[in-house]
C-alpha cells in the first residue's frame, strides 16, 4: 500500500493516547561548577588559542553590558539589552562554527557577534546611532549587523529570522558552499508562527540550518510555563522530523560540543538540527523592563550561582592557560578601554540628512528626492529646530 500521508501506520486495536510528555530530552553537561569535567564526560578538543578567545569574548560582553546598561541609566544611550547569563550559549555556539557560516540572531547574541570579531568601536557606533554605525543610525541600540563577518542585521519583530534562516541555508546549499546558517531565538519567539513555518520548511527542503533556541525562562515577564506545555522546545524538532539536542547553556564546553556536532551533521546531510540551550536571563528583558514585578530576588540569586563565565574560568586556570592576576588586570584595563570608546563614539556626528532617504530603495525614487528637497528648505528656514542636520546641509 502506498503511504500518501507520510506517516507510519502501525495498527493497534485498542484506543490509547500517546502522552504529551512521552518525549523527554536529556541535557548535555560537560563542565561542572568547580571547573572540572563531569565523571564520564569528555571535554571537546579545544586548542588554547580558541579557548582563550572564547573566554575573552565572554568577559568582554560581560563588561560591555555592565558599562552600557549604566550608560543607558545615565541617559547617554536610549536603550540597552544585556546578554547576562547567556554568554556561554552565544559564544560557545559561535566558536563551533566556521567564520563564514551565517549568523541570524534575535537580539541578545552579542557574545556570538564579539566572537566573530565585531570591534569595540563598531559596538559603540551602533549603540550611539552615529554616522559610523554600519546601520546608519536607523535602528535602536543592540540591533547590530555586519556583512563582512556574516552576521545578519537584527530585526526587532520576533522569530522572523527563523524561516529566513531556512531560506538562507538552502541558498548556501544550492550554491555549493560548505557553510551552514545558525539561527538564534528565544523560547518565547518559538511560539510565533514563523518558528513552525521555518522548521518545517528547513526539514522539508533539507536546509543546513542550526536552529539554536535560547530557552532562558522568560519572554519579558512571561515565564516559560505560561509559554508552552511541552518538554521545552527541543522535543518539537522530532515533530518536524529533525534531530535535536539540549545543552546546559551555562556550560560552554557542552554548547561548543553540541554545536560542533550539529554543524558537522547539517553539512554532511543538509538536514537542519534544533539545539536548545537551558540558561537563565539574569538581567531584565531590556533597559525598559524591571523584573522585580514578576520574579523573586531569590530565584535570580539561585541562578546567579550558575555563572557561565566563572565555571569556564576555573577550567582555564586549572589547565594553566589563564593567569588569575593578569586576567583581573586585563578586565580592569577593558573597563577603561570601553569607557574611552564610549566617550569617542558619543561625540561622533549623527548620519547626514541624505541618509533619511537612502536605502529605502537601491536609488531614491523621485518622490523621495522631492520630499527631501522640501524638508531641506524647511530646515533652512528653522535651523535651530533641527540642530543635528541644519549645520551640515549641502
Amino acid at each position: 500500500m502506498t503511504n500518501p500521508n507520510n506517516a507510519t501506520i502501525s495498527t493497534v486495536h485498542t484506543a490509547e493516547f500517546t502522552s504529551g510528555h512521552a518525549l523527554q530530552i536529556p541535557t548535555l553537561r560537560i563542565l561542572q561548577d568547580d571547573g572540572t569535567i563531569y565523571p564520564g564526560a569528555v571535554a571537546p578538543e579545544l586548542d588554547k588559542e580558541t579557548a582563550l578567545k572564547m573566554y575573552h569574548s565572554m568577559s568582554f560582553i560581560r563588561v560591555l553590558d555592565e558599562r552600557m546598561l549604566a550608560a543607558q541609566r545615565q541617559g547617554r544611550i536610549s536603550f540597552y539589552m544585556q546578554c547576562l547569563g547567556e554568554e556561554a550559549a552565544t559564544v560557545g555556539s559561535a566558536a563551533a562554527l566556521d567564520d563564514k557560516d551565517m549568523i541570524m540572531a534575535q537580539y541578545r547574541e552579542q557574545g556570538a557577534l564579539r566572537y566573530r570579531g565585531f570591534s569595540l568601536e563598531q559596538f559603540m557606533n551602533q549603540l550611539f546611532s552615529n554616522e559610523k554605525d554600519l546601520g546608519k543610525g536607523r535602528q535602536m541600540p543592540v540591533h547590530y549587523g555586519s556583512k563582512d563577518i556574516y552576521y545578519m542585521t537584527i530585526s526587532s519583530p520576533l522569530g522572523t529570522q527563523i524561516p529566513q534562516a531556512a531560506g538562507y541555508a538552502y541558498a548556501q546549499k544550492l550554491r555549493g558552499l560548505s557553510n551552514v546558517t545558525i539561527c538564534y531565538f528565544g523560547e518565547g519567539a518559538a511560539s510565533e508562527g514563523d518558528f513552525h513555518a521555518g522548521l518545517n520548511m528547513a526539514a522539508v527542503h533539507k536546509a543546513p540550518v542550526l536552529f539554536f533556541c535560547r530557552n532562558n525562562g522568560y519572554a519579558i515577564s512571561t515565564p516559560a510555563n505560561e509559554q508552552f506545555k511541552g518538554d521545552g522546545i527541543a522535543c518539537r524538532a522530532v515533530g518536524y522530523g529533525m534531530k535535536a539536542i539540549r545543552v546546559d547553556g551555562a556550560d560552554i564546553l557542552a554548547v561548543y560540543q553540541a554545536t560542533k556536532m550539529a554543524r558537522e551533521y547539517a553539512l554532511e546531510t543538509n538536514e537542519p538540527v534544533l539545539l536548545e540551550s537551558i540558561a537563565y536571563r539574569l538581567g531584565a528583558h531590556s533597559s525598559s523592563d524591571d523584573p522585580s514585578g514578576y520574579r523573586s530576588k531569590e530565584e535570580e540569586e539561585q541562578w546567579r550561582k550558575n555563572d557561565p563565565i566563572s565555571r569556564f574560568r576555573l577550567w582555564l586556570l586549572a589547565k594553566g592557560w589563564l593567569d588569575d592576576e593578569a586576567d583581573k588586570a586585563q578586565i580592569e584595563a577593558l573597563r577603561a578601554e570601553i569607557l574611552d570608546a564610549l566617550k569617542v563614539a558619543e561625540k561622533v556626528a549623527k548620519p547626514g540628512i541624505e541618509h533619511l532617504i537612502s536605502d529605502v530603495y537601491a536609488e531614491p525614487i523621485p518622490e523621495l528626492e522631492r520630499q527631501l528637497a522640501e524638508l531641506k528648505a524647511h530646515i533652512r528656514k528653522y535651523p535651530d529646530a533641527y540642530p543635528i542636520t541644519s549645520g551640515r546641509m549641502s
Partner: protein
Amino acid sequence: MAKMNMLQAINNALDLAMAKDSTVVCFGEDVGHFGGVFRATSKLQEKYGKDRCFNTPLTEQGIAGFANGMASQGMKPVAEIQFADYIFPAFDQIVNETAKFRYRSGNEFNVGGLVFRTPYGGGIAGGHYHSQSPEAYFAHTPGLKIAVPRDPYQAKGLLLASIASEDPVIFFEPKKLYRASTGEVPEEYYEIPLGVAEVMQEGKDVTVLAWGAQIEICQKAIEMAQAQGISCELIDLRSILPWDVETVVKSVTKTGRLVINHEAPLTGGFAGEIAATIQQRCFLHLESPIARVCGLDTPYPLALEREYVADHLKTFEAIVASVKF
C-alpha cells in the same frame, strides 16, 4: 472626576467593562500578572482572575485567531498587541477573518465585541519597529472599525464604546501620550460614539484635521498661526473607520481650506482618502489645495526622527501656505 493619565484611563475603562460584563476578557503578551509592558492591564488579573485576564504565548497571529474564536462564541475579547509594529503576523486573522466574519457567513456568525488594543506611533526613540502608525492598512479593510484617542478622557470613552460595539474595533493608543497626557476623567461609565469627529476649536480661515498624538502638535501650530491672525478650526477625527465625513465637509465648506496631519508616511496614508472625499464634496468651496503634513515615505528613522516627523513647524508652514495660496 479624577485626574488620570492615558494609561490609567484605559485601565479604568477595562476595569469598568469587566465589572459590568462578565464576557469581557483581556489577554495578550505580558498582560496578566505583570499588567502589560505599559501596565494598561495592571491589577486586572488580581481583580478578575486568571481566566479573564491572562498572558498568552508570544504569537500575535495566535492572539488574533484566539480572539476571533472567543468573539464568535459570543464573548468580548479585548486583545492587546504589544506594539502596533508587531500586529502584522496577525494581519491575516484580522483582515481575512475578523473583518469578514459577519459578511461571509450571511450574519450567521460575527465577532462584534472584539477589540484589538495596540500602542502605535513615534516620539519614544523607538526606531522603525516601535514607532509605526499602521492605521491606513486596516482602513482599507471593510468590516473593521478603527478609533484613536487623543487624551485620557477620549481614551476611556472611545474604548468603552469599542467594547460595546457590535463590530470589531482596532483601538490604536498613542504610546507617546500614555503617561504624558493627563486630564480629568469621570470615574463612571461613559461612551464616546465611534464614527463621530469632534470640532475642538472653531475658526474661519482654515480647517486643521488630525487624530491621536498629532492633535497636540496641531494645537501648537495653530497657536503660531493665530499669532499671525489666522483663525483655525481644529478637528479631531477620533475614528478612522468609519470616518465622519459630514463634520469635515461642514467645516471645510465654511473655511474653504484644509490641512491634514498624520504621523504615518504620506503615500497611501489616510489623509489621501480624506483629501479625495473632501475635494469631491467641497470642490466649489475650496480656496486652496488640500494640504497633507505627514511622515516621509521612508521607514520611521531613529537618529533623524526630528527631521522626519510631521511636527508643529511643518504644520504651521502648511497652514500659512494654505491661507496665502
